């Protein structure tokens, strides 16, 4: 097994999907077949192939059978299954095992037909984009018809090369077949004119009429997702089911430095995690942090745990387990990662794990006026426009007794209906004028407060004053729109002006307001 195979399947899949494929860059200008169509490493035996892919034994064998023996033609096959079930890894490793020439292109990285066509043709013509050729592709093709013609020519050339190689006994690959692998076929559906591209790809077998070409499609969508497209011919489906708990266990156990310790850890924590997700890539990240915690009491990481220690370690991890389960999909930002790696790493982690209320800092930087704008957008999305006058009167919303009485007068049923309505509709939309009015209100209120209390906490807001905060509001607004904090939600049919909608939830709004000492809670209308 090559060196890059040492990491577990999940990691390999993500980090080396393209790296595995692209052969190491060579200085020679005339690449040979060996570094164009084949893995550079040695051939892998069937046993290594099967042991490297735990839980995929029957799928590997079935795919091998369908691909067939050396130089035997094949019908197109469609490998499908959910995300993180080892589809790509399996197919690529099978080709490493078979040692046959193939061309791999992913419809996700090749994001439009043209790039996809270029990628396939470049690989077939052994063309590498470089400084010398100005990073140009081997052939230019925009149309599907040109692509099919060029592809046929390129395939004939490639097959002749392979045949010549096998005749001269300088053979690098097995057999006289060449395989085209199209990964992430499901991504094509969302392309512009995706249906026609899909039918083109699925009918390549008929269009080319070359028995020397094998076609393999990899998709995370089920075969019935492709029925609708015109002219599609069904490939033979090969289903990759999700891993079960034991298989996930086996995969996570791959290449561990201390297998005994890790297996006791896994047998303690894996089951509850598997109730949430069985995707290896997500579990891998979630368990990594937890394992670090698990090992904290240990001085020597190579220790073989006995019963007593197991119990002690488990007791140590128990309180964190529930919190960790709710953090399964927590993606730490770069800044908080740094903080975690820092000196007081232990305290930081505890704070992170024990609930979101404690996290007071924002993970990103934002100017003060942008923060005000964001808060006013949140308020105008959240509160009904009719209450604006009551909230933002001359006293600046400090008088909320009146509001409370009003809401208590509402009947409970009506309250439920409104709450239900809000759940369904989400944040409301608002015109620009209302946003600016609220913005002006809250900034002026804050200035007033600063003046009275003389709090030199937020220097920018004070120094900037009215002019500073108002000057580039529209600029800030477009920035927030680009960052997806606020979205444009179509135009109002009556007024014809653009309406906006804020996407942030209450937690984030509270965080932002806390960072500028703004009493947001006073202004939120609780119905």
């Amino acid at each position: 097994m090559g060196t890059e195979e040492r990491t577990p399947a999940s990691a390999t899949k993500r980090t080396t999907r393209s790296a595995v494929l692209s052969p190491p860059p060579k200085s020679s200008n005339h690449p040979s077949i060996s570094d164009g169509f084949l893995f550079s490493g040695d051939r892998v035996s069937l046993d290594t192939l099967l042991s490297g892919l735990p839980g995929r034994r029957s799928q590997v064998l079935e795919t091998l059978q369908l691909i067939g023996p050396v130089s035997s033609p094949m019908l197109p096959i469609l490998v499908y299954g959910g995300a993180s079930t080892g589809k790509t890894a399996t197919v690529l490793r099978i080709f490493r095992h078979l040692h046959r020439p193939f061309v791999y292109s992913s419809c996700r990285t090749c994001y439009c037909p043209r790039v996809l066509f270029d990628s396939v043709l470049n690989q077939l013509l052994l063309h590498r984009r470089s400084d010398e050729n100005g990073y140009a592709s081997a052939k230019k093709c925009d149309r599907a018809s040109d692509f099919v013609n060029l592809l046929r020519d390129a395939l004939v050339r490639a097959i002749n090369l392979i045949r010549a190689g096998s005749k001269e006994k300088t053979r690098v690959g097995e057999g006289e077949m060449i395989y085209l692998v199209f990964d992430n076929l499901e991504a094509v559906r969302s392309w512009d004119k995706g249906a026609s591209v899909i039918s083109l790809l699925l009918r390549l077998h008929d269009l080319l009429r070359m028995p020397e070409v094998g076609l393999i499609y990899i998709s995370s969508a089920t075969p019935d997702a492709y029925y609708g497209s015109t002219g599609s011919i069904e490939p033979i489906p090969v289903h990759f089911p999700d891993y079960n708990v034991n298989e996930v266990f086996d995969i996570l156990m791959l290449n561990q430095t201390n297998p005994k310790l890790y297996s006791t850890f896994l047998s303690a924590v894996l089951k509850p995690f598997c109730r949430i997700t069985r995707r290896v890539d997500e579990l891998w990240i979630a368990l990594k942090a937890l394992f670090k915690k698990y090992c904290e009491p240990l001085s020597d990481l190579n220790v073989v745990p006995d019963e007593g220690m197991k119990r002690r370690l488990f007791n140590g991890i128990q309180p964190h387990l529930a919190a960790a389960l709710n953090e399964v999909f927590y993606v730490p930002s770069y800044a908080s990662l740094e903080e975690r790696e820092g000196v007081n790493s232990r305290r930081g982690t505890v704070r992170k794990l024990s609930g979101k209320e404690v996290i007071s800092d924002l993970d990103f930087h934002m100017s003060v006026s942008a923060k005000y704008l964001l808060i006013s957008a949140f308020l105008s999305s959240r509160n009904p426009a009719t209450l604006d006058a009551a909230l933002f009167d001359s006293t600046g919303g400090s008088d909320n007794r009146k509001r409370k009485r009003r809401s208590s007068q509402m009947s409970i049923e009506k309250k439920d209906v409104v709450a239900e309505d809000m759940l369904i509709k989400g944040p409301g939309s608002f015109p620009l004028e209302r946003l600016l009015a609220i913005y002006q209100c809250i900034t002026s209120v804050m200035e007033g407060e600063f003046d009275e209390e003389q709090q030199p906490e937020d220097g920018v807001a004070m120094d900037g004053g009215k002019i500073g905060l108002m000057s580039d509001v529209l600029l800030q607004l477009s920035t927030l729109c680009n960052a997806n904090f606020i979205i444009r939600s179509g135009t109002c049919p009556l007024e014809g002006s653009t309406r906006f909608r804020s996407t942030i939830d209450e937690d984030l709004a509270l965080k932002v307001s806390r960072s500028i000492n703004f009493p947001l809670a006073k202004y939120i209308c609780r119905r």
Partner: protein
Amino acid sequence: MAAEKALALLRSRLCDVSFAHGAFKSSPDSNYSKLKFIISNSIAEGCNNSVLLLGPRGSGKIAVVELALRDLSAEYPDMICMIRLNGLLHSDDNCGLKEIARQLCLEHQLIFSKMASSDDNSQFMLDMLRECGLAHKTIIFLLDEFDLFIQGKQRLLYSLLDAMQTLSSQAVVIGVSCRLDADKLLEKRVRSRFSHRKLLFVPPTTEDLKVLLNHVLYLPENSPFPSNYVKEFNSRIKSILGDKKFNEALNSLSDVDGTFSNVLRFLYQAVSYMDLASGLLTLQNFKSALLCTQKQPKLDIVKDASVLELYILVCMNRLETKEQNSYNFNSILKEYNAIHEAYKTSDHYSRTVCLRAYEHLLERELICFVDGKGRHLSTECRPVKLLISFSELCQGLKSNSSCPAILQKLLDRESFK
């Protein structure tokens, strides 16, 4: 070794569609014979012709054309020139003319100019038709996906068929389509120039299938294989073909889709599963191939779903039976929390975790957003719907090994309502 060779032989037979249709060559009223007659008539008499081949996908239309042309070009060497167009690629008129010009150039060793205009190409086509007519060479235009050529202004079809009205040309236009009403879609000026010959392709009958199976699966008697291996292999095939269970399998396959390509795909799979050690096909091979064609991907996904994802599915189902006209993630979460309050389940997770599980379901296409675009709403607020039926959900929950009992109970209660 013999087993591997036999496998390779069978696979190459099954991958080559024309081979399978060779079984019906001899019968006089097969489409093959009719088509061959039409084309050979045109070649021998020096006249123009046009014909439509209509039939469902996978019924072997193109395969029959290929087979007929292969035989005819052996019969009349150097008298046939083949131009292939596909509606998927060349339905655009300019593009189609260009492709015709390109293939004509390729066929006659002329230099093709990419810069030639559509007019030039069309003129070139007319000239070539005349020249070939004078040289008694027949040009055959094979238009696959014929219905896609009809979608536009039909300029390509018109100029092609109009050119064939002259006496000097000698050409055959073969249109291949899976739309049975393809000729009704033609414009009047095109229809009047089209000879209304139609060959209809129907799925094979049981007798046809038998002929096909015999043709494809038996190893040839006089072959490089050891004779006792051939004898054993063929006798095994005979016993399988006569088996009642095999015929049941074949029937259930053709009940769903009885076209040639589907049967061939089924055979290909069965042959691929052949055990190389024994070198013989077994009934089990065919059975597992049949199982593979009868998969229900949606059910498989429910079977694979994690417990939290199942909770969300059940919540959605409850909301749908409550006849709420639309609901989104927020209302699902409310329902989820309500279930938790009522039954005190152990699987209660935070909002973010639920949201991710919800996104998994979207990714797996078990649920989808109701509105197509919805770009101005975040994921939580967009209304969704289930893409599986109630019975599918029930079946999926039953087959899911980790499904908690409470979900089953909740769902059973729904079914009584």
